[in-house]
């Protein structure tokens, strides 16, 4: 009898808890996959396809499904680090060489106005019309290099964005105690 009672209680408990769980899974269902969005927020949105996926979102989905996190050269090692932090995975060296940030420049004398680069540009950063010279809107260029291969006259080149007063950053204050002391000692010796 006792056994039956125990079983009944356990069964009842299971039913109640199961119902609760079921209710919760419906009530608090998370729409979409927030993980993919978080991953995508880390990706640099160059849409360059260097990862082998057609854009950043597909790569974000692939990462969420277990793909490697080191396939995004524009994101750099810092991007890999942030992805590793987010996903709790191991930091891996970048799959390809890390390049400095750059933008595409059209040599306007060579351009024949074929519109092929305009079609290739993933972010519509190139303006121009058929048989008209094209130019690149520098602020919108992500430096993805996708416009390079289609150009029949090779008039597009990549230019590294150098440091200027507007984008200059204060450096991390490194005060090496040892070198400072050596310097002080050297100065004393000189005096």
């Amino acid at each position, binding site marked *: 009898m006792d056994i039956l009672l125990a079983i009944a209680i356990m069964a009842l408990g299971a039913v109640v808890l199961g119902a609760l769980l079921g209710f919760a899974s419906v009530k608090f269902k998370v729409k979409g996959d927030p993980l993919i969005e978080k991953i*995508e927020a880390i*990706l*640099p*949105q*160059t*849409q360059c396809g260097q990862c082998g996926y057609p*854009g*950043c979102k597909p790569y974000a989905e692939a990462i969420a499904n277990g793909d490697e996190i080191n396939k995004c050269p524009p994101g750099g090692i810092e991007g890999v680090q942030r992805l590793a932090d987010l996903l709790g995975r191991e930091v891996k060296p970048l799959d390809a060489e890390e390049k400095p940030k750059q933008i595409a420049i059209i040599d306007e004398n060579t351009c024949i106005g074929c519109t092929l680069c305009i079609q290739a*540009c*993933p*972010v*519509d*950063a190139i303006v121009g019309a058929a048989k008209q010279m094209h130019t690149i809107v520098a*602020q*919108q260029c*992500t430096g993805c290099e996708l416009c390079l291969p289609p150009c029949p006259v090779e008039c597009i080149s990549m230019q590294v964005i150098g*440091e*200027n*007063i507007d*984008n*200059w*950053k*204060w*450096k*991390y*204050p490194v*005060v090496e*105690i040892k070198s*400072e*002391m050596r310097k*002080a000692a050297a*100065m004393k010796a000189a005096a």
Partner: protein
Amino acid sequence: MLMNLFKFKGGVKPPTNKTQSVNLPIAQAPLPSRLVVPLHQSIGGMPQPVVEAGDKVLKGQLIGEADGWISAAVHAPTSGTVVEVAMHVQPHPSGLDALCVVIEPDGKDEWIPREPVDYKSLPPEEVRERLQQAGVVGLGGAVFPTHGKLTASKTVPMDELIINGAECEPFITCDDLLMRERAEEVVRGIGIFRDLLQPKKVLIGIEDNKPEAAAAMRLAVQALGESFAVVQVPTLYPAGGAKQLIRVLTGKEVPASKRSTDLGVQCFNVATAYTAWRAIAHGEPVVSRLVTVTGNVHEPRNYEVLIGTPMDELLKLAHPHPDTDGIIMGGPMMGFLVPDRQVPVVKATNCLIAHDDRLFPPKAPEMPCIRCGACAQACPHELQPFEMYWFSRAKNFGKTQEYNIFDCIECGCCSYVCPSRIPLVQYFRFAKSEIWAREREKNAADQAKLRFEFKQLREEREKAEKAEKLAKAAAAQAAKKAAEAVAAAAAAGESGAAPAADTAAAPAVATPTDAPTATVNPEKEAKRATIEAAMARAKAQREAVQPKNVDNLSPEQLKAAADIEARRIAAHLIEPQPADQTAPLDPNN
């Protein structure tokens, strides 16, 4: 006038070192061998050069045109020839280049025709416009275009106009000398600001270590019959910070997230008021400013210096000691060592300090933070610098923002008091510029994403449109077929007793070879024709219902088509396809 002063928390009292440079009156610095005038000398848009190499310019002639509302024009500081418009090293901690107009003086110092105006006869907008065109910017060091600060908030009444003559940084005395010697013009300049902003009262704050300046200002205020209050505030660095002075004089605290006009208060530097007066009442744009030259020199003094004067030429006037190993631009608390002694004096240059190890001993090695809290007690913005340091050092920038890093005014009080000699401000500058860079990157990424998604959307839409057109074409074709079938069925019905082989909807059936077979079994053949006609009717019905674009064809058209088809079929024409008729609809097909 007795006034209730407020206090701000924190602050430090470094040795002021001001007495060295106040003994001599202001001197006019001689014309330098050449002038390098940077185009970007104010916050906001980068002015566009309007001169080219080889141009002759007169003193005060426009050489850089303001770009946008928050931007200020730049003028030739003297008459001469433009040698080049090129990149030169800037007086900026980065040591990077920026676009400058290089002028070789002709020695005549010849002005353009100046247009003095009575500002009271001008509408306020035009006064602001003139200030912008004259390149008047905040000369306290922030170089924010002054005209941009001369509009009162629409919702908050303007209570106080604060004029900043506190000059709290050690060594600097240019505002002190300006007030001593040119108080009248300063007060007249304040009058312009007062008339534009219409505040309830005007308070001129001067640190109490400058009694001569305060006396001169009082005298000038009295002489001009103004009601401005000259208030001596306690000497405590950084009492000359705009937010601190506002707090001391009004008790109002302006956080980083608000503009001071939102609290009904606005603040200008005394030198700004002076240049505003010169610009309006004398038609002279800002081509020079007062610069304190002090530090490790024989003869510390204040000079009226043309903008663009190379710093080493200016420093030579004060006879620097031979062991001078650098030039600090600005004060010792917030200034920086210039990257090159050749860099020009700009509108933000209020002081040059010859640097040597005796005046500024090299920093002792940095020790770990012991959380003593001295920085928090010294911080005039009541921040927790040691916490911000911790997170800046760990590059945990989100946390630094939680500790309000953007309220930090980089006054340097925390670094000054730190017993571990941690360059705290430097960590905060680093964290701030990293956060800004990330913000820029994030905005760029967001934009790129948006544009990419839009492009995808557009491509999909184009694809969909194409598909629709194709579908339309197909439907039109089908409609034709349907019409044919209907006609064929009708024809079959008409022929009645002779439903011969030629009635078939399927063209293959209607070949002449069918005729002999038809004769083989006429009964069977007739039955087959009826069945086929019925199938064709059903098919026609089905197709007539399915595509919507058949609606486009009017009944007359349908009927005409059917008639033609019927005739053609009747005339034994094979393969009556209407393809050529639909072709004009979609040339891309």
